[in-house]
Structures are given as C-alpha cells and as structure tokens.
C-alpha cells in the first residue's frame, strides 16, 4: 500500500497492519527524519515539493517491483510532502515476510529507490539561507547496484 500525504504517520498503526497475517515472521521498517544538522549549517525547516500524479505512479511501480523480487506478505510506503521541521518524520517504508531476509532486503531496496526515483524535491531553510537539496551521487550509484 502507498500513501502520499501531508499528515504525520503512526508507525504502530502500520506495524499492526503488517502483523495481522500470522504467517509473518519478520517486519522491517525504515523511517526517514528531517535532520537539524547542528554541527554544520543548522536546518530550520524542509519543504517537500512533489509531482502528485507521478509520485503515486512511481511509488506503485517501486512497490510492485519489490514484490516481484522478494516473497513479501505485506508492504507499505508512506511519503509526506509540505513543510517539515527537524525531528519530523518524512518517509516510512515497511515490509513483512515469512523469513527475515525478504523483509530486510526489500526494505533497503525501497528506500534506495525512493531517494532517486520518487519525484520529490527538498527545499531546506538553513542558517545560511534557502537551498534546494542537490542530487546525492552516492544515492544514484547505490540504486544501480540493485539492477
């Protein structure tokens, strides 16, 4: 299941849904948060802009791909947009499977894909001013390793 929303999400609620099937032996979650980054150039807020129709399409596609590659019982992707603050949750990926490696590996795959394939752009308001987050070349390389 995928959700693109302004509101925050509740990890326990998603955990409950993923544990409903009693054949589930393992559940993996990844939660991405806004970092304050105090040590460098303090971040005051992060505004996520997105391309709504394309986001839904890409998230569906990524989820289908994960279900092709691994034996999953359930999967959830929640991605927020709008203005967020340090400590706020941005994204949740959750996967459940009979055996742990399917859940663990697909969860990592999903978050790696989201980094470079989900049409979001992040505008950071830092101590030094506003700036669009640039492409992380490490992320582009990481996602290639999944081919």
């Amino acid at each position, binding site marked *: 299941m995928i959700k693109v929303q302004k509101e925050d999400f509740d990890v326990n609620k998603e955990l409950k849904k993923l544990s409903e099937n009693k054949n589930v032996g393992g559940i993996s979650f990844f939660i991405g948060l806004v970092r304050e980054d105090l040590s460098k150039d303090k971040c005051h807020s992060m505004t996520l802009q997105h391309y709504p129709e394309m986001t839904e399409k890409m998230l569906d596609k990524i989820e289908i791909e994960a279900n092709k590659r691994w034996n999953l019982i359930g999967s959830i992707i929640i991605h927020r947009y709008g203005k967020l603050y340090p400590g706020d949750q941005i994204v949740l990926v959750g996967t459940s499977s009979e055996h742990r490696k399917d859940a663990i590996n697909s969860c990592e795959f999903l978050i790696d894909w*989201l980094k470079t*394939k989900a049409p979001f*752009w992040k505008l950071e308001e830092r101590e030094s001013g506003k700036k669009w987050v*640039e492409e992380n070349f490490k992320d582009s390389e990481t996602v290639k390793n999944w081919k």
Partner: protein
Amino acid sequence: MNIKYFSWVRDQIGLDEEQIELDPKVNSVEKLVSHLIKNSEDHSKALADISLIRCAVNMEVVNLNHKIKNEDEIAFFPPMTGG
C-alpha cells in the same frame, strides 16, 4: 501541451505550469527545450544547462531525443531527491 516545472526550475521560470500549442516541427524533448528557451529570459536561464535537468513525458523519465506530441504532459525538474 501542458508543461510543468518543479524545484529551482519552477523558481527560475516563475511558473508552476504553462500551456503551449505545439508546433508539429517541435517533435522531440530537445527541440522543445530549444523552443522554450526563446520564450523568455527566465526560461533561457533555467534551461541553459540541460545536463542539470530531467524531463518526464506522461510521468515517465525520458531522454532528450524522446518524441513528443501535443497531447503529452511534459515536466522539467532537477534530479529527484525523495526518501
């Protein structure tokens, strides 16, 4: 044709989206970029270095020689930073 802009491309052009009537000779993404650059100084500045920009046609990322037609939805944006 409906053209959408995101991130700093949107900021520089000063438009979320715009409608244009596509000249049939402008039949690829590359030709569309050349056409848009003539529109205004803001377009010209935003699209100057095409290596910084990605294009989606009907919500699929494509390359510059991808063919386009008037009914397509086009979007220009920098590399995505999701997750």
